[in-house]
């Protein structure tokens, strides 16, 4: 296994910047998830690492080797595709053997390695079948088998779980994580599902509009999003964002809504004063907000918009100054729509973003 380094990688299609100056390092044996909404450039980035499309600029290193101009076959990587890309006219055995045949291994050794990979993935009984005779989960295993049959330096995975049904996806997620731990493999994993990224990855690279927004551990991305995009993309339900103004009187700083103010703690006041204008966005995750049924100093008034019970927890969407704030409640608490409520924000766990630049205030 090897590390993978991207430096100032650029990909343009005509005037469209698909990947815009992306740099990050995937450590040896690390599981990195590339996440972002559709069209954010994550799959393009993966294809650039694989060498399937030419770069417009920048450098990619796999191990210590500069691979900018190498063919995919010479990069010594393996890839798992969203549609599995199993060769439909070959049996499972021949699918697994293909990468070894292309590397001109002896017949006996190919048979040995294929058998071993099949045993690990528990697909031995499927070896003589054609891909179309397999279920989605089985095809997924075969695709994985074809990737790991020949110890590549890195695994690239392009949304490998998104074609599976919800139950199987959760199961395969666990297996993939286990597979990564057992092999100590370097994995670069593309997904649009932030939950997959958070649960499996050592680090996640959040992309939007071709640019890398944040590259950090899932915990840090979750706890310290660098901008409003990351804040609203990671976490389910998303972080609530309320655009407000700052009001300063002496040392005290408060956030002002239409007919209320929220005094900020000294630490938060200092952050808010770092904003480029008085436009500041308040961000808070559902679990850090408490709901009250009577007004009190420091509470923010709102009106219940919808109530969504999920069983474990009930999500309440509250209208606050034109924005929606999501609060989680114990399902035992009765709550009705269109009632007035008052919200308490945890000063230690709320987020402030610059209203003009959308960047986190630190």
């Amino acid at each position, binding site marked *: 296994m090897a590390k993978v380094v991207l430096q100032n990688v650029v990909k343009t299609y005509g005037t469209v910047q698909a990947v815009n100056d992306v740099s990050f390092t995937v450590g040896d044996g690390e599981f990195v998830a590339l996440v972002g909404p559709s069209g954010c450039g994550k799959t393009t980035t993966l294809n650039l690492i694989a060498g399937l499309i030419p770069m417009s600029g920048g450098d990619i290193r796999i191990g210590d080797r500069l691979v900018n101009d190498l063919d995919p*076959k010479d990069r010594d*990587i393996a890839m798992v*595709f969203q*549609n599995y*890309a199993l*060769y439909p*006219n070959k049996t499972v055995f021949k699918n697994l053997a293909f*990468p070894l045949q292309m590397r001109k291994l002896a017949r006996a050794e190919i048979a040995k390695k294929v058998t071993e990979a099949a045993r690990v993935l528990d697909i031995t009984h499927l070896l003589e079948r054609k891909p179309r005779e397999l279920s989605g989960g089985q095809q997924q295993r075969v695709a994985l088998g074809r990737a790991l049959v020949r110890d590549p330096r890195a695994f690239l995975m392009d949304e490998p779980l998104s074609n599976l049904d919800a139950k199987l996806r959760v199961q395969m997620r666990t297996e993939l994580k286990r597979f990564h731990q057992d092999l100590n493999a370097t994995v670069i994993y593309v997904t649009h599902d932030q939950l997959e990224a958070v649960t499996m990855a050592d680090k996640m690279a959040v992309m939007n509009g071709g640019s890398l927004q944040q590259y950090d551990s899932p915990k840090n991305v979750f706890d310290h999003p660098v901008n409003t995009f990351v804040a609203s993309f990671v976490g389910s339900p998303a972080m609530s964002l309320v655009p407000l103004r700052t009001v300063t009187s002496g040392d005290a700083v408060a956030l002002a809504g239409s007919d209320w103010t929220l005094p900020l703690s000294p630490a938060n006041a200092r952050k808010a004063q770092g904003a480029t204008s008085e436009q500041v966005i308040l961000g808070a995750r559902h679990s850090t907000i408490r709901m009250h049924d009577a007004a009190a100093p420091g509470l923010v008034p709102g009106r219940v918009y919808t109530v969504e019970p999920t069983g474990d927890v009930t999500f309440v969407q509250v209208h606050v100054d034109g924005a929606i704030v999501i609060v989680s409640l114990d399902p035992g608490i009765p709550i009705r729509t269109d009632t007035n409520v008052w919200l308490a924000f945890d000063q230690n766990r709320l987020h402030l973003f610059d209203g003009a630049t959308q960047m986190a205030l630190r």
Partner: protein
Amino acid sequence: MSDRITRKGFDGWRWAGRVFLTLLLLFTVVPMVWMVLTSIKTQFAAMQYPPQWWPQEPTLENYTKLLNPANPAGADFLRYFWNSLYISVATTILGVGVAVPAAYAFSRFRFPGRTFLFFAVLLRNMFPAVVFLMPLFILMRWMGLVGSHGSLILTYLTFGLPLSIWLLKGFYDNIPIQLEHAARIDGATRFQAFVLIVLPLSTPGIIATAIFSFIGAWNEYVYAITFLNKKERLTLPVGIQKYFAEFSTDWPGLMAATFLMSVPVVVLFLVLQQYFVKALTEGAVKA
């Protein structure tokens, strides 16, 4: 609801469809049956009125005559037959050989003039073939090809290729590009990925294209009669027509020749059809 409606008595549309299909079947089959029946009649029986529906003295004499190189009519027929076979096979092989890479390129690559070229290819098909007869004849004369089989092969290629490319491009469009990506990551060059993975998957398309260009060349008449001037170089459609003029009364002979002419196409179709079905079911163009 719909179940009850369809089960209630007489379904007019369904019966109309059946009647239509039966008429269509008769329309195509009866002439062929008549051709075969006439070909095994004697000359006298063929000219009888009212006609003999079933030959009273069936004979294979017309066939033995045509297939016997010692017989002048047979020698001519066999030469025409080989000429046609040569031209059709050459057209098919060259056509597929050019159409496969061209279609692949149209399907996979973005290059300047791609759209223009592709529509230029279609534009040709909007004109009847006869429009190009004189220009092509002048072109062939300028190249010194008039009267040669090469002129016909070239002509059939110009007419056959556009549709072949169009047909095959559809097949390549349906083969997921990820298969090639996977092959290239698994250690294949771009060319190997094409030959080892894509080509086998496009077998049904290649066979369909081959049948299409073979039949086109085999049956073509207008260009063959214009470009070929020596008797020994004629192709079957032209040859049979001359034979028809010379022995205008020999209906059984003509029918036998026509029947023999249709044999290669039917054989080709039957042989390749098995392949076709096999490739379709095994290959499952979708991944």
